[in-house]
């Protein structure tokens, strides 16, 4: 039965090994087929995630096969070649790890299949350093588990550690995939593919089993405890599901809260900037409005235009305009007449006006309103400006304007720094100002990650993934997309009212989600710790259960063994009893019947002497039979007939028993000496007396021809145990026969009367009180001493007695 269970157990381990290795093999084969047959979906598991590299697939096949071979031919695996191959594999994989970490990609990895392309910025078809590390660990674990003495050795611990590391790494990465934020994406290092990780998870499990249940070993195992372990396994699954779910939910909660926070921040900043930009525009237009329809100013202009040589009016005008330049930091303020000629410039020697600006003047004059000329590039100094155009009108309304005052603004002085400013510390955040030109978005400011973009960088409005384009199209609010660099970003867009401008306040997603990523890593690590903890707890409970189970079983087996031994002893005793009883009872029957036959004959012959002899034999035999039956009855009563136990002193019992055999004692002239230690007994008075009675009777019977027969009765309270003794100076017992004296119907001397039951009876009574009995005699003629204990009948012992 035991071996059967053992085989079953080993088979199941082998089965799971085969299943795991076939899964590993299958994943590898599918991916490799995908590459060879040009069906990349097979390698990427029908997801938009990174596909498994061809060399990873190939190695997974090799490792899966290795595990299979290990199960089917466990002994062949122990050759030097296998160990060498594993060693070389491990070193090669460490080399791959270094290569992959340093982003040195080797074309041979593609197995001459034409693979190009990237997934999220990562080149496809190269082994991840994580995979390389896992392969190296797998090689190490595999070679360590080969050792025949793997159980309880340092190697086994190492092999377990390697397999556990693979499992841990896989678990972390798989959980990250599960949470929708896979690690190493958007980084420079190739991330491991999801199918690769699943294959490694299987491989890690297979390696664990290889260490626990090495195939080809017959290990003495604890009895089958599969039932509690199934419950525990389910418990573990439940716990693991709970841990992962709680982790996932807490992560989602964090992401949600974090997103809300980020959106709020971006929106706040966007609104702040929007308001300031609006304000700025209004202020500039307000600057213009002061000059507009200002009678004093327009008359001053008229005077200057009509008499340009009038130094006084020119000085007056220069003073007025100059205030604007100083106060409001305009690049230049100039007067342009209706012909478009710049009549006055403050400060002097400023660059000529851009043609783009001059083109705007006639329409501005016609409109009769202060207007703002949006960002334009001055073709002369190649700089970007804005300008406020103020037509100079006189009171007589329909009259044509005298000219315009241009307030030219250099955005570098105030506007650009203001746009650039970000109120919180950030490495990627910036604000973009864009306007529409035809079907394109034009960037109006210089950008953080690209030089010289103002009025140069354009993007088609149909690029809707671009927040700038969407802002121009009138979408406001929070959005995700990719910016001018193609980077994924989170953006808040605003349209600035009464202007052609749209504004984008944006941050790189990588920066936004960096804390989320850190948090994810924390949660995953915590979950891994919890999972391993739960596993360890369940494992410990299982171990305890199986230990408990074993102990119980062992205890049960022990008790059973003890009981059956006891039963066996009893049975043997009974058998012996029946055997001897039938034999000893048959003997006198044979005697009686035979001598009856003789008697008949002798009666016929009339032989008086023989008749008397025959009758004597018959009488003796029947007497013996009667005695035997009495003794048997007495014997069977012991332990069955119970009289209530009483307290009785040792001396009293002895005197009672001596009284019963007083006749024989005096007949033989035996001197009796009793030594009392004040021991009190508690038990069946008659039975206890029977002990001494039988022993004394026995001693008298075997006095031999002793001249001064003596019997010494006493108790020795040495070592806190009362040892009773009955010593005589009779014929003694040959040491060879001492063991036989307590057996039923056993008589050492056929000549002496008795049935051979007396000492057997004593033994039974002693055993009833959980005592022992033994005999000591130096030999024939040396006297005999019977010793016995009565553990359960002792009430008290006076310490310090004899001995």
């Amino acid at each position, binding site marked *: 039965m035991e071996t059967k269970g053992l085989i079953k157990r080993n088979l199941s381990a082998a089965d799971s090994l085969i299943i795991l290795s076939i899964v590993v093999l299958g994943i590898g084969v599918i991916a490799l087929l995908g590459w060879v047959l040009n069906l990349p979906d097979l390698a990427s598991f029908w997801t938009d995630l990174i596909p498994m590299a061809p060399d990873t697939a190939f190695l997974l096949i090799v490792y899966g096969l290795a595990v299979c071979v290990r199960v089917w031919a466990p002994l062949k695996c122990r050759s030097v070649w296998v160990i060498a191959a594993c060693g070389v594999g491990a070193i090669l994989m460490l080399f791959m790890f270094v290569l992959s970490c340093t982003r040195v990609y080797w074309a041979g990895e593609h197995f001459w299949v034409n693979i190009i392309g990237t997934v999220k910025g990562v080149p496809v078809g190269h082994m991840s350093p994580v995979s390389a590390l896992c392969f190296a660990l797998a090689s190490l674990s595999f070679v360590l588990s080969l050792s025949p003495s793997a159980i309880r050795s340092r190697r086994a611990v190492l092999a377990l550690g390697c397999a556990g590391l693979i499992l841990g790494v896989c678990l972390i990465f798989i959980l990250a995939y599960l949470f929708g934020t896979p690690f190493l994406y958007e980084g420079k290092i190739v991330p491991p593919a999801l199918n690769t990780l699943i294959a490694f998870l299987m491989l890690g499990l297979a390696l664990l089993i290889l260490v626990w249940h090495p195939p080809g070993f017959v290990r003495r195992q604890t009895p089958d405890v599969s039932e509690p372990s199934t419950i525990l396994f389910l418990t573990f699954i439940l716990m693991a599901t709970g841990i992962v779910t709680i982790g996932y939910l807490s992560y989602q909660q964090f992401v949600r809260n974090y997103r809300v926070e980020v959106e709020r921040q971006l929106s706040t900043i966007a609104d702040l900037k929007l308001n300031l930009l609006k304000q700025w525009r209004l202020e500039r237009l307000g600057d213009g409005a002061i000059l507009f329809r200002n009678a004093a100013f327009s008359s001053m202009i008229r005077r200057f235009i009509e008499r340009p040589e009038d130094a006084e009016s020119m000085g007056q005008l220069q003073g007025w305009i100059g205030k604007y330049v100083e106060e409001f930091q305009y690049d230049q303020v100039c007067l342009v007449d209706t012909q478009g000629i710049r009549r006055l410039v403050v400060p002097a020697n400023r660059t000529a006006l851009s043609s783009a600006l001059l083109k705007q003047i006639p329409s501005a004059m016609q409109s009769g309103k202060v207007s703002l000329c949006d960002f334009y590039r001055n073709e002369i100094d190649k700089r970007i400006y804005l300008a406020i155009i103020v037509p100079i009108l006189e009171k007589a309304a329909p009259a044509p304007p005298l000219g315009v005052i241009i307030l030219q603004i250099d955005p570098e002085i105030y506007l650009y720094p203001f746009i650039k400013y970000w109120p919180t510390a950030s490495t990627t955040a910036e604000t973009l100002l864009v306007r529409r030109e035809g079907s394109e978005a034009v960037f109006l400011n210089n950008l953080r990650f690209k030089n010289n973009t103002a009025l140069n960088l354009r993007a088609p409005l149909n690029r809707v993934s671009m927040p700038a384009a969407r802002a121009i199209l009138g979408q406001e609010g929070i959005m995700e997309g990719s910016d001018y660099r193609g980077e994924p970003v989170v953006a808040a867009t605003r349209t600035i009212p009464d202007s052609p401008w749209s504004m984008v306040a944006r941050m790189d997603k990588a920066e936004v989600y960096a804390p989320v990523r850190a948090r994810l890593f924390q949660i995953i690590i915590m979950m891994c710790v919890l999972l391993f903890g739960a596993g360890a707890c369940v494992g410990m409970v299982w171990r305890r259960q199986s230990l408990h189970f074993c102990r119980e079983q062992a205890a049960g087996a022990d008790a059973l063994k003890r009981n059956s031994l006891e039963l066996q002893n009893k049975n043997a005793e009974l058998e012996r009893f029946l*055997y*001897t009883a039938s*034999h*000893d009872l*048959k*003997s*006198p*029957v*044979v*005697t009686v*019947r*035979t*001598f*009856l*036959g*003789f008697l008949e004959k002798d009666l016929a012959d009339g032989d008086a002497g023989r008749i008397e002899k025959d009758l004597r*034999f018959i009488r*003796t*035999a029947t007497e013996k039979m009667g005695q035997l039956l009495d003794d048997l009855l007495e014997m069977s009563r012991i332990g069955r007939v119970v009289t209530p136990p009483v307290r009785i002193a040792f001396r009293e019992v002895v005197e009672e028993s001596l009284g019963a055999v007083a006749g024989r004692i005096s007949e033989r002239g035996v001197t009796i000496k009793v030594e009392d230690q004040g021991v009190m007994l508690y038990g069946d008075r008659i039975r206890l007396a029977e002990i001494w009675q039988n022993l004394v009777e026995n001693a008298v019977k075997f006095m031999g021809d002793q001249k001064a027969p003596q019997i010494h009765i006493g108790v020795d309270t040495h070592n806190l145990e009362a040892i009773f003794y009955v010593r005589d100076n009779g014929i003694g017992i*040959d040491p060879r*026969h001492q063991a036989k004296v307590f057996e039923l*119907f*056993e*008589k*050492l*001397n*056929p*000549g002496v009367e008795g049935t051979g039951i007396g000492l057997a009876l004593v033994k039974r009574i002693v055993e009833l009180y959980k005592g022992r009995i033994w005999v000591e005699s130096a030999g024939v003629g040396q006297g005999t001493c019977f010793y016995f204990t009565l553990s359960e009948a002792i009430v008290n012992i006076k310490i310090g007695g004899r001995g």
Partner: protein
Amino acid sequence: MKGEPIVILLVEDDEAHAEIVRRNFETSHLANRLMHVSDGQAALDYLHRRNGFSNPEKSPRPGIILLDLRLPKVDGLEVLKKIKADSDFSPIPVVILTTSKAEEDMVRAYDNHANSYLVKPVDFSQFTKLMETFGYYWLAWNQFPH
């Protein structure tokens, strides 16, 4: 009958049974060849001529041994074992004569090379007949080497 008469050693603790055997042998005029000891130890002493059996005249080497199984001091089976283990005595036929019909006793006796196993009959005439047959068989028909 040839040469010296064959001595029968009876090992029997029950006086009455020994008497039965002796009486039966008396009828067949074999009683003078019967030597009786009443326990196993005495039987061994007799064979080895020690402890009171040292006189070869009084304790001649038996030609056949009638052995009871339940004996004081040394058990019958033990005696049988010792006889058959001793090359001096092993050729002597040992006939077990006992009240026991127990299978295990027979098996053990034959295992220890008993030459024959006889159960004491309860019936008087059968006992007489058995002893008579025993005498004829072992002392008349059976041939012993010189």
